[in-house]
């Protein structure tokens, strides 16, 4: 299998911005709404190119979600942009009733997800958003891992009919998937073959999973690394196939263990193939101020944490 190398650090939100810019040029029905965070969401270029299709709603996220639902009735494909916290928890009922239950084709695009928002602290670092969104019937939930994948996901969700939650982040992180990797909603990507343990990761933790696999290899452990970018619908087949070979699994995500990817994997395995599993995730806690790297270390969301959990789960086989 190919070895993934970091071609340069860049933020995933810029991948969203680039994807949206491309969509704006090729699909006249794509419109964008933003709640006073145009620069933070990297939506400036779309706004400059298509001012008539860009809706600045101010600091009023509830109205933004309702407006997005209304725009779909006129045949538009609305992309809403704000931080993950304000894209989900703040407007849960608006999403639930006007978008999800009403079956509206709205793309909820959420930046600054998780701890890696950094210094702003816990008021802005949502670690519950995947759970909130995956519980909504009909909602697709996507957490891409790097710039290229976020750009590809942004473009792909415009073609998908139905509500989507797209989660990405603020910090510069390794860009390691190739530009031409096809993005298929609901399809896991096997990044590395292995036989001793399966590491299933999403978002910023995917690069950490690859780093962990290198360290494990130095210790004679062969890790299989699977990138789950679509948490719902989940690629159950890819998960079951891999753990059938390795017999144990570590899930890794920048999210609370309650409600996250790990729980979805655990349910899949409990129903089809009960398997020892360890969770790299936050432990039912809020975040705090700090640099992204400091926070990921303190809360156990990096390559070292994955290595530790991998050794632990292998011992449980």
């Amino acid at each position: 299998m190919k070895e993934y190398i970091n071609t340069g650090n860049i933020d995933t939100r810029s991948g969203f911005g680039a994807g949206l810019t491309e969509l704006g040029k090729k699909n006249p029905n794509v419109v964008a709404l933003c709640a006073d965070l145009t620069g933070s969401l990297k939506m400036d270029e779309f706004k400059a190119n298509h001012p008539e299709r860009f809706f600045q709603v101010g600091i009023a996220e509830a109205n933004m979600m309702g407006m997005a639902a209304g725009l779909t009735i006129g045949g538009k494909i609305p992309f809403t942009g704000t931080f993950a916290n304000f894209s989900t928890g703040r407007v849960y009922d608006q999403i639930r009733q006007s978008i999800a239950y009403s079956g509206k084709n709205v793309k909820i695009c959420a930046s600054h997800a998780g701890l890696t928002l950094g210094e702003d602290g816990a008021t802005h670092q949502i670690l519950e958003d995947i759970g909130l969104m995956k519980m909504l019937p009909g909602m697709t939930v996507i957490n891409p891992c790097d710039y290229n994948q976020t750009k590809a996901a942004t473009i792909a969700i415009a073609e998908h009919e139905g509500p989507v939650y797209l989660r990405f982040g603020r910090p510069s992180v390794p860009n390691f998937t190739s530009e031409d990797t096809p993005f298929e909603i609901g399809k896991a990507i096997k990044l590395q073959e292995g036989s001793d343990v399966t590491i299933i990761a999403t978002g910023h933790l995917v690069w950490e999973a690859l780093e962990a696999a290198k360290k494990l290899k130095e210790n004679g452990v062969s890790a299989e690394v699977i990138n789950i970018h679509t948490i719902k619908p989940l690629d159950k087949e890819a998960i079951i196939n891999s753990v059938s070979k390795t017999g144990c699994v570590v899930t890794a995500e920048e999210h609370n263990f309650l409600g996250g990817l790990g729980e979805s994997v655990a349910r899949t395995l409990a129903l089809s193939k009960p398997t020892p599993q360890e969770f790299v995730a936050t432990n039912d806690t809020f975040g705090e101020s700090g640099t992204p790297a400091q926070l990921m270390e303190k809360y156990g969301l990096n390559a070292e944490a994955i290595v530790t959990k991998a050794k632990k789960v292998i011992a449980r086989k």
Partner: protein
Amino acid sequence: MEELVTQVRRDILRQVHAVNSGHPGGSLGCTEFFVTLFQEVLQTKQPFTVEDKGEDLFFLSNGHISPVLYSTLARSGYFPVEELKTFRLLNSRLQGHPTTHDGLPGVRVASGSLGQGISVAIGSAQAKKLNKDTHLVYTLCGDGELQEGQNWEALMYAAGNKVDNLIVTVDYNKQQIDGSTDDVLPLGNLREKIEAFGWDVLDIEEGNDLDAVRKGMAEAKSRTGKGKPVCVLLHTVMGHGVDFMMHTHAWHGKAPNDEQLEIALSQNPETSLGDY
């Protein structure tokens, strides 16, 4: 039209009585408005689709008055009148609060959790501008519903962005579940508040008089396209048409029993349209 108003009132009463639940008060108070809207105001295209085909759109924000919506839709040909028998029953398209989930013609968005309809209406109105469609977007919300903050986000947005192809009607009956709006959470001077937000506001003082509603809605329509969103304060009486349900919040969300139904129906006698 008068006959249809009476028949819709009979339908409302019979729907909520049959399942011993639902919201007759606001439904009865808005009957003249719904009949006027669907019979005379809205320019729609049939068959109904959720997607806008270049037509007037209507959104009900205060979804709990579903009985009046369902009856008016059925009596306007959106679905068979007999289907009113299924109101609030298992497997029905006529859910307690309106939804698109089961494909009921006439409903484009779910409502029930309050305060969301104006935002949806604004979005669809903005889509119309992008589509160069000159039809209008109408929505109805309750007055108590204006206690929800999202409405004020929406009011601010619509004025600030000159969404002037939109008419928001407020059912101004001054009652909500727990009592009068003045007792529960005073709305203050609604007209001045909404005008201060930058809207063109007009009152329909006799919201239970067909002529007044007809003229008022025509006036509202004439004020669109002039750079401001339009708001109609529709002064109604909750429970209108049934004497013991009027001027009280008691029948906001309570169904009549057999005896009460009989009295209520006697005040709204059978019409040539026939009960479902």
